[in-house]
């Protein structure tokens, strides 16, 4: 099956800092999504982004499908950004990476 690798596995930031999270995948995909899992376990869809670039406030994402990677940018991080960020790819079904655990310190 398709492999999804996320890096870094852990990231600690000071409030206000910027960060880039990466998702590599091993084969062509129909769909790529980024999710945030908050400290209470709730999963929220951030972006549906099979290719190109999207922005939503302080978050943006870029997927380069031909090179099989996606990047999630978080600017001016806030403590509420803490949690785990997952990318998921869809070939015939939706497969998740292991996630990046982000801790933003005040």
């Amino acid at each position, binding site marked *: *099956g398709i492999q999804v690798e996320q890096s870094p596995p852990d990231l600690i930031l000071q409030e206000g800092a910027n960060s880039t999270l990466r998702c590599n995948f091993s084969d062509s995909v*129909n*769909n790529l*999504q980024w*999710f945030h899992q908050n400290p209470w*376990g*709730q*999963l*929220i*869809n951030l972006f*549906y982004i*099979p290719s190109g670039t999207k922005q939503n406030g302080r978050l943006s994402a870029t997927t380069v499908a031909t090179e099989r990677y996606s990047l999630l940018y978080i600017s001016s991080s806030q403590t509420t950004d803490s949690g785990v960020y*997952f990318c*998921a790819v*869809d070939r*015939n*079904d*939706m*497969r*998740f*990476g*292991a*996630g990046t655990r982000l801790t933003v310190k005040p």
Partner: protein
Amino acid sequence: NAGVTQTPKFRILKIGQSMTLQCTQDMNHNYMYWYRQDPGMGLKLIYYSVGAGITDKGEVPNGYNVSRSTTEDFPLRLELAAPSQTSVYFCASSPGQGAGLVFGPGTRLTVT
């Protein structure tokens, strides 16, 4: 719109017991999924369905069964619970390929 609802929220099972995790969505989504998340890990796909009457295995289907008799409901059945099935179970739905997943709040299951 309640979105995706899951019951129960928590459950403790003894080894060998059976149970059904319920999942219902009211968004008329065709696609539904079951994932499990072990502590500190990512989500693993158990089963998925692209419409009523159609189900397919995911990465980790052993020990589970599903059915999809209606668009709204996608129950997950554990027949003989084992400690390795201790996990948080998430149900999700989407309108189809090319659309975002909507997750339920999860069911925390402990098998002892």
